[in-house]
C-alpha cells in the first residue's frame, strides 16, 4: 500500500467510524437527558461545531509526519468507546442521580464529553492533506472531501441499516473502529518500531476487552438504572427492563415508562374516555398499553382492542416481563400511530392517545388538526377521542393555559364538544355527543369497579377544579398544525421554565460568535457556510414533512437521512473535474440557482399543493439536493486555490453552517414560525450568498 492509498483509506475509515460514533453518541445523550427537539439539535450542533473547530486548528500547519497521522488515527479509533463509557460514568458524577438536567448543564456536559473526540476527528481530515503534501503526493481538497464523504455515506448506511438492528453501542464501536485500528497499526509498524508496537497493543487489547466483554456493557448502565433484567437497543431508542425488589419497570431512552401498579394513569386515561359511551365495541389505544391499561379497557367488554405501539421492543419486552398481560386479546400493532389512523379502514368507538408531551416534531404530529381529522375519520358516529398532557393540579400556569387552549381550539375544529378533566394529567375528551363530568357515577352504572377513580375522583377532580380549568381556556387560541407547530413553542418554553432558565443568553452568544466569524470569513467560504446551513435546514424540513405523510418509521427516515448524504460523493466527484476558473464561477452560480430552485419547489409544495408525494420523490429530492451541495465544496476550494490551503477553512465553514442550520431550524424557525417561513429563511440565506458572490 503506498502512502496515497494509506491516506485515502484513512479518510474513508475515519468517516465510517466518526459518523457511527456521532449517531451512537447522540443516541446516548438522548438516553441520558431529556430527548426533546432542543437536546437533539443541541447534540448535533455541538458535534459539528467542535469538529469544525478541530479542522480549523490544523489551518496554520504546513508539515506533518505520517507517524503522527497513524498515532492520531489509533487514538481516534479508541476514543469512541471511552467517550460513550465516559458519558455514562460522568453523568452520575456530574448530576444528581435521577435528575433530568436543564439546557445549560446539558450543553456543558455535551461539550465536555465530546470535545476531545470531535476536535481530534475534525483535526485529522486536514492533517491527512498536510501529510500528503509532506510526502510529496498532494491530495487535493476536493479529493479529501470526496473521500471523507464516501466514509460518511458508508458509515451512515452501515449504521442505519445494519448496526442499529444488530449491535449494541460498545460492539458497534468495536466493529467500526477495527478498520481504523488495523490501518493505524500498519502505519505504526515500521522496522525498529516493534517496541512501540507492544506499547500500543495494550490499549488496543483493553479496547477490545472492554467493548466485547458481554456483561460489561450492561454493567455500565447500572449506575443509571439499577438491576437490569433486559436490555435492548431498538432503532427508536434504548429499552430497558429493571427490577426494584418485587417491582419491574420498563424504561424508554432513560425515562421510566411504567412501573408495576401504576393504576392512576391507567384508570384515568381509560375510564374518563370509555365511561362516556353507552356501548364500547372497538377501541384504539395509541401507545401506553402497559400495565393495568388493557385490563381497564376490557372491563367494558369491547369486541376488539387495537393497541398501536411504534417500538416492537416495548411490546416485546413488556410481554416477556409481564408488563403487558399475556393472554390479553388486544391486537398489538407495531407501527406509527398516525400511519395506522391514516391507513385503517376500521371504525372505532374510542381512540385514546397516551403519548409524551409534544416536544419533538415526531410527537407534535399527534397533537395537530390534521391528525385529529384522521382520528375523526376513524371514529364511529359519536365516538370519543381522548388525549392527555402534563398538568399541575393546583395551579394553572400561563403556559399551561396556552397549551390547553391551543389543544382545545385544535380539537374543536373537528369535534362539537371538548371537556378537560383535571386529573394527575389534564385529560382532554372530544366528541360530537354529550360529555359527562361525573365519571364515578358513570362507571358505577355500568357495574365497573376501579380502585382509584371510584375512590379518589370526587376529592381530586372536584367540580370546582373542572370548572376552573375549562373556564381558563382562551377561545381564540391558535390551532396547532403539522406545518405550523405552535404547541411545540409552548412546550419548549415550559421546559425552560422548569429550570428557571432562558435560551436567550445562549442564542445571543451564538449570534455574537457567528457575527465575528462571518466578518473574518472569505466570500467563497460564506457560500459553503450558507450551503451547510441550508442542507441541514432542508433535511429537517424534508424529514419532518415525510413523517407527517408517511409516519415515523425508522427504515424510511433512515433512508431519507442517508439520501441527504448520498448525493455528496457524486456531487463532489463532479465538482472535482477541472473546468478552469471562469467556468467554475459560472458552475457555482448555477449550483446556487439549483439550490434556490429546490427550496422554492419545497416552499410551493408545502405552501400551495401539499399533495402526498411518493417516497421516491422525497429520496430523489434529497439526493439531488445533497449532490449540489457536494458539488460546491471542491469548486470553492479550487477557486480559493490549493496553494492557499483552503481545506481547513472550507471544512470549518461547511460544518459550522450545518451546526447553525440544525440549531436554528429545529429549535427556532419551525417552532416559532412554521415550515413555510423556515423555507423562506433558507431561501433568503442562499440569496445572500449569491449576492455576495455576484458582488465579487
Amino acid at each position: 500500500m503506498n502512502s496515497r492509498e494509506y491516506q485515502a483509506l484513512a479518510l474513508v475509515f475515519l468517516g465510517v467510524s466518526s459518523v457511527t460514533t456521532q449517531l451512537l453518541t447522540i443516541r446516548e445523550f438522548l438516553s441520558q437527558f431529556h430527548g426533546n427537539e432542543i437536546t437533539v439539535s443541541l447534540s448535533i450542533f455541538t458535534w459539528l461545531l467542535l469538529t469544525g473547530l478541530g479542522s480549523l486548528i490544523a489551518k496554520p500547519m504546513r508539515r506533518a509526519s505520517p507517524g503522527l497521522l497513524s498515532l492520531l488515527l489509533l487514538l481516534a479509533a479508541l476514543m469512541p468507546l471511552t467517550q460513550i463509557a465516559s458519558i455514562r460514568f460522568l453523568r452520575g458524577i456530574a448530576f444528581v442521580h435521577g435528575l433530568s438536567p436543564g439546557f445549560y448543564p446539558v450543553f456543558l456536559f455535551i461539550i465536555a464529553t465530546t470535545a476531545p473526540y470531535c476536535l481530534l476527528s475534525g483535526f485529522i481530515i486536514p492533517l491527512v492533506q498536510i501529510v500528503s503534501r509532506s510526502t510529496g503526493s498532494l491530495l487535493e481538497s476536493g479529493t479529501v472531501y470526496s473521500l471523507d464523504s464516501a466514509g460518511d455515506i458508508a458509515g451512515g448506511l452501515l449504521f442505519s441499516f445494519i448496526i442499529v438492528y444488530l449491535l449494541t453501542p460498545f460492539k458497534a464501536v468495536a466493529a467500526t473502529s477495527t478498520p481504523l485500528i488495523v490501518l493505524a497499526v500498519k502505519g505504526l509498524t515500521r522496522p525498529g518500531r516493534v517496541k512501540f508496537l507492544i506499547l500500543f497493543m495494550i490499549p488496543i487489547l483493553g479496547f477490545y476487552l472492554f467493548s466485547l466483554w458481554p456483561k460489561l456493557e450492561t454493567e455500565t448502565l447500572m449506575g443509571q438504572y439499577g438491576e437490569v433484567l433486559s436490555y435492548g437497543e431498538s432503532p427508536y431508542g434504548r429499552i430497558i427492563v429493571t427490577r426494584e425488589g418485587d417491582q419491574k419497570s420498563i424504561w424508554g431512552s432513560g425515562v421510566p415508562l411504567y412501573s408495576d401498579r401504576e393504576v392512576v394513569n391507567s384508570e384515568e386515561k381509560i375510564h374518563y374516555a370509555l365511561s362516556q359511551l353507552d356501548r364500547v365495541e372497538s377501541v384504539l389505544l395509541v401507545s401506553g398499553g402497559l400495565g393495568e391499561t388493557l385490563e381497564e379497557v376490557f372491563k367494558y367488554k369491547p369486541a376488539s382492542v387495537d393497541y398501536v405501539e411504534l417500538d416492537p421492543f416495548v411490546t416485546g419486552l413488556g410481554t416477556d416481563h409481564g408488563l403487558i398481560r399475556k393472554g390479553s386479546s388486544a391486537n398489538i400493532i407495531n407501527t406509527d400511530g398516525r400511519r395506522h389512523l391514516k391507513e385503517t379502514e376500521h371504525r372505532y368507538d374510542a381512540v385514546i392517545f397516551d403519548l409524551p408531551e409534544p416536544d419533538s416534531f415526531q410527537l407534535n404530529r399527534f397533537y395537530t388538526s390534521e391528525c385529529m381529522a384522521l382520528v375523526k375519520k376513524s371514529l364511529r358516529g359519536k365516538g370519543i377521542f381522548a388525549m392527555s398532557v402534563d398538568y399541575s393540579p393546583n395551579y394553572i400556569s400561563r403556559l399551561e393555559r396556552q397549551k390547553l387552549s391551543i389543544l382545545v381550539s385544535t380539537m374543536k375544529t373537528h369535534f362539537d364538544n371538548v371537556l378537560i378533566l383535571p386529573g394527575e394529567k389534564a385529560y382532554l375528551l372530544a366528541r360530537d355527543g354529550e360529555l359527562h363530568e361525573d365519571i364515578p357515577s358513570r362507571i358505577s352504572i355500568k357495574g365497573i369497579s376501579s380502585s382509584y377513580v371510584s375512590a379518589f375522583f370526587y376529592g381530586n377532580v372536584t367540580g370546582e377544579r373542572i370548572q376552573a380549568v375549562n373556564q381558563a381556556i382562551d377561545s381564540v387560541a391558535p390551532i396547532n398544525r403539522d406545518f405550523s407547530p405552535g404547541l411545540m413553542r409552548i412546550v419548549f418554553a415550559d421546559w425552560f421554565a422548569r429550570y428557571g432558565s432562558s435560551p436567550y443568553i445562549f442564542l445571543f452568544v451564538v449570534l455574537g460568535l457567528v457575527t465575528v466569524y462571518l466578518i473574518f470569513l472569505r466570500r467563497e467560504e460564506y457560500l459553503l457556510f450558507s450551503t451547510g446551513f441550508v442542507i441541514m435546514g432542508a433535511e429537517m424540513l424534508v424529514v419532518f414533512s415525510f413523517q407527517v405523510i408517511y409516519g415515523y418509521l425508522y427504515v424510511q427516515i433512515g433512508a431519507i437521512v442517508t439520501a441527504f448524504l448520498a448525493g455528496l460523493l457524486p456531487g463532489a466527484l463532479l465538482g472535482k473535474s477541472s473546468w478552469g476558473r471562469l467556468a467554475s464561477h459560472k458552475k457555482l452560480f448555477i449550483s446556487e440557482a439549483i439550490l434556490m430552485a429546490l427550496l422554492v419547489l419545497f416552499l410551493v409544495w408545502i405552501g400551495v399543493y401539499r399533495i402526498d408525494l411518493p417516497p421516491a420523490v422525497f429520496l430523489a429530492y434529497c439526493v439531488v439536493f445533497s449532490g449540489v451541495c457536494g458539488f460546491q465544496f471542491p469548486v470553492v476550494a479550487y477557486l480559493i486555490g490549493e496553494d492557499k490551503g483552503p481545506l481547513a477553512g472550507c471544512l470549518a465553514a461547511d460544518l459550522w453552517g450545518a451546526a447553525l442550520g440544525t440549531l436554528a431550524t429545529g429549535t427556532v424557525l419551525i417552532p416559532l414560525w412554521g415550515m413555510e417561513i423556515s423555507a423562506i429563511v433558507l431561501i433568503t440565506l442562499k440569496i445572500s450568498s449569491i449576492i455576495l458572490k455576484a458582488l465579487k
Partner: protein
Amino acid sequence: MEMTRIEFLRTVGLGISALIMPGQALAFPGLADPEKDIRGTVFRNDAPARPWKWSTEGAYYSTSGKLVQCGICPNRCLLKPGDRSVCRSRVNVDGRLYSLAYGNACSVHTDPVEKKPLFHFLPGSLIFSIASTGCNLRCLNCQNWEISQKKPDEVDHIELFPPDIVAEARKRKIPSIAYTYAEPVTFYEYTRDTSLIAREEGLLNVLVSNGYINEGPLRELCAVLDGANINLKSFSDRTYRTLNGGTLDPVLNTLRILAREGVWFEITTLVVPAYVDSPEMIKEMCGWIVRELGPDRPLHLLRFFPRYRLTRLPATPVETLEKLRETAMKEGVNHVYIGNVAGHPGANTYCPGCRKLLVERKGYLKGEFHINKGRCGFCGRQIPGRWVV
C-alpha cells in the same frame, strides 16, 4: 467503608477517562463532590422599586443600616436594598423587609382533609386550602413548582385578604383552613393573620409545610394552629442538601416544638427510590420519632412518582413501602400509613391495642368507622388525634 459495585465501576470509569481523556474527567471537578448542595441563593437586585398592593412589612427581621436579615426560616436571608430572598417572595425595599405574598392567593381549592394528608383530624371533612407563591427549599421533585419556585408577580392570583379567606370558608361551610401547596412559612404573615381571624371565627387552622422554620415564628404560629402535616423529607442531612436544598436539624426542631406546644400534627415522608428507601434510615428516623415525639405520631409513607426535575427514577415499589411500614411499626410508631397507592389497606387505621380495623379508607370515601369519642370502639384504647370540631 465498603465500596458498592456501582461506586467501583464509577471510580474505574473515571480513572480510565482521566487516563485517556483528561478533558472529560476534568469537566466537572466540583460536581464530583458527593455532598452536592442545591440550596437556593438570594436574588441580587431583583426586588421591585416599591412594595405592591399585596405587600406587608415582614415579621421577624433585623436590620443593620439598610441591610435586613429575615429570621423566619433557617436560610436567614441577608438582603441588601433591592435584593429578593431565597424564597422569592420577600424583598428589601429601602432598608425594610416586605413580604410580597399577602392577600394574593394563587391557589384556592376545597380538598378532603385526607388529601393533606391528615388521617387523625376531622376525618371525612373538607378543608379550604390556599397558597401564595414561594418556597425556602428547592426540592427536585416538587409537585407544585409552578407556584413554589416562582416570584409573586410571575403567577396569576386572586385577591383574597385574610378576612376574605375566612369569610369564604364560612360561606362554603368548611370547618378548617389549610395553608398549603407552596410553602406557608414563606408567606408567614398571610398565614398568621388569616389564622388569627379564623380562630376568632371558630375555624380551625392547618399548616401543611416542610417545617423549615425558626423557633420564634413557629411558636407564635403554634398559638393559632390546630393541626399540621410536616414533610420530613428524609432522615439524612446529606439527602436534604442534595434533593431538597435544606438541612435536617431545623425540621426535627420544628417537630419537637409542635409536639411541645400541643399542636396536632402528622408526618409525611416521600419514599424516593435510592434516596429515602433505606430500611436503616427509616429505622433510625422512627426511633427518633418515638423517642422525641412519642409512639402516637402518625407517619405517612408516600409512594414516589417521577416529577418536575427528578424524572429518571422509577416509582417506589409497593413492596418497599410495605417493608418500611413494618420497620416503622416495629420501631414503635403506632400509626404508619401507606399513601399514593390506591386501594392499599395500609391507608386504614387499626387500633394499636386490639389490632382491629377502626377507620376504613377507600380513597377519600369513608368505610367502616369505629372510633367513639377518640377511643377504639372495640377495646376502648385512646386513639390520638382530633376527631371532632
